[in-house]
């Protein structure tokens, strides 16, 4: 009995750890998509975040600088995406793919010198009192700072998006850029801003992988998490709170897969690794019927470049 409950505790703890990079990726993309810009480049953003965080941690030993570097790298790639999709108005799908290719390539080339080296990494920081609560303590409060940051980010983002004036402006730009423009809001600037901010937060998810989760640099270490993140944005219906549930659901599937492997199941690890992707397809299927889409209301202008001259 005792063994069983500790197994559940460690699995749930692993769930939070595995869900955190996804959570950052999803939260970042929610900001971007709320402004009406679709960014499919999460995979590339995360990889660039992972390598720049790792490289800076390796050369300076300062984790704060590492996190900042990852966020700046994400913001720069976000800027590229914004330039192509907002200013040049090119297809957002293709631009997102190009971001992923660039991110994969840059991280691979840059990371060549960092394979197999050890850098400063985030350590577990038990929160006093809270971590002593039975069951909940080890599951939720025996993690590193980045995990706690992600906890904070969820309610903050929720409040920001739904309860503040800048949040209202953000939603207006994503819903109806024409109306926002008519009220004197600079649609282009808002979209640039949130594409960069979203890129920075998504890149943080990548940095979590290289600085806390795996604690080293491996080429293509995101292994499709960026794409799962895109599916989770739909699943979460652009809501930060639901994003948290989605991210932990997927983290749970990953953690469970690892645990089953460790327990020596006869199922091949390759089959277990398929589960998150199959689950994503299933989730997409059940969240994408017209009815649900109408009810939750995706940002109406998502994926549509805005132009002052060509009003539709």
């Amino acid at each position, binding site marked *: 009995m005792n063994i069983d409950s500790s197994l559940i505790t460690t699995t749930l703890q692993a769930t939070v750890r595995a869900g955190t990079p996804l959570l950052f990726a999803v939260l970042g993309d929610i900001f971007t998509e709320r402004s009406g810009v679709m960014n*499919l480049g999460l995979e*590339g953003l995360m990889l660039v975040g992972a390598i720049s965080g790792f490289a800076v941690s390796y050369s300076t030993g300062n984790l704060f600088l590492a996190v900042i570097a990852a966020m700046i790298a994400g913001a720069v790639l976000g800027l*590229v995406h914004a330039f*192509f999709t907002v*200013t*040049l*108005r*090119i*297809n957002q*799908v*293709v*631009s997102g*793919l*190009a*971001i*992923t*290719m*660039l*991110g*994969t*390539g*840059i*991280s*691979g*080339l840059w*990371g*060549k*010198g960092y394979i197999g080296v050890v850098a400063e990494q985030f350590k577990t920081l038990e929160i006093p009192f809270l971590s002593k609560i039975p069951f909940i303590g080890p599951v939720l409060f025996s993690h590193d700072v980045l995990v706690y940051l992600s906890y904070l980010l969820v309610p903050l983002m929720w409040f920001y998006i739904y309860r503040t004036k800048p949040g209202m402006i953000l939603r207006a730009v994503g819903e109806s850029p024409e109306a926002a423009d008519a009220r004197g809001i600079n649609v282009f600037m808002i979209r640039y801003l949130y594409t960069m901010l979203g890129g920075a937060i998504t890149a943080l998810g990548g940095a979590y992988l290289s600085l806390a989760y795996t604690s080293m640099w491996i*080429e293509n270490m995101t292994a*499709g998490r960026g*794409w*799962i993140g*895109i*599916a989770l944005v*739909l699943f979460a219906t652009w809501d930060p709170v639901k994003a948290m549930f989605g991210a932990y659901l997927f983290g749970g599937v990953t953690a469970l897969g690892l645990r089953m492997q460790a327990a020596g199941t006869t199922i*091949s690890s*390759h*089959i277990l*690794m*398929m589960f998150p*992707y*199959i689950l*994503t*397809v299933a989730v*997409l*299927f059940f969240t*994408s*019927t*017209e009815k649900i*889409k109408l009810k939750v209301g995706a940002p109406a202008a998502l994926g549509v470049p805005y*132009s002052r*001259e*060509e009003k539709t």
Partner: protein
Amino acid sequence: MKIKIEKREGTPFYMNILVPAASIIFSLFVMGIILLIFFQRSGMGWGEAFSETLSAYREMFSWPFGNIYGIYQTLLKMVPLAFVGLGLSFAYRMKIWNIGGEGQLYMGAFAATWGALFLFNGIENKFIMITLVLLMGAAVGALWAAIPAFMKAFAKTDEIVVTLMLNYVAIFWVDYLVYGPWKDPKGYNFPLTAEYPESAQLPTMFNGEVHIGIIMVIILAVILQYVYSRTSWGFNSSIAGDNQKAAKYAGINIGFYTIVALLVSGAIAGMGGAVQMMGIQHRLQHGFSPGYGYTAIIIAWLAKLNPVAILLVSFLFGGLLVGNEQLQMFYRLPLALIYIFQGLVLFSLLGGEAIFNYRISFVKERAVEE
């Protein structure tokens, strides 16, 4: 000052060639700068890094395009790229974003192996065997694309993420087979299957240097060119891609067209997987594709979905892949370089088009207000 962007009325024809060519040249230039920095950072002086970059470029182009054996390699690499690129063009014409070429290629290769090693392994007749294996690849490729097709047609599920997720599932599936039940006991523990029987190996040309897959893909391109330009399918699918409303008024069944577009797209990519297996690999193995399915996306775009242009661009990108392999071997550069290059091509191509499609001018703020 303010940037003003106006749409141009019609694009001159020469832009269709100028923009892709300029974007490739521009990307090579930017990649040159990246290489320069890379060499410099790995401990060379700037002058030495510069000459190293130049010689790397010479290496990258002289072998795949300037040497007959290099050209054979380029042709071999071109085959899977062109198959998947042609397949994708079939869906992209309807603006259906099939990003799943990689997975469909893998599933085609899986099905071909299933056929060649287990289902039809008694068949001695080369012609029957090759036809059957090819059909297996096409059928399973189509089946794999049927998942996003039906989801999109009936539940309006976004096909981008679904096709992408299925790529991962397909790759893990092949890994499962080659590490597990299909692993060749005589393979020295490498993750690969047994070799195809002689009858399931494609005939070759040029003293055995190039298999006949290259002829197949040329025939396929001609057929598609005909379908796109001369049949009602070609006409209707491009209307459906341009304007769904107009297509509905014209009585085009969008759901049906969506399903067929994705099925054919997947079938062609799957066939490419079968050809790759029968032509060059002769056995299924872990990670046999260095991302052909993703490169094919760029190829289809660069070629503006024109089948003959897809052949030409595939040849070019096949050569770049061969050249990149040379760089990996002789300059110890990572595979990642090719992704940077592809991302750059995609961006400069699209950016170039945007610049040519829109007239961008700087005007005084006041002038806009009027």
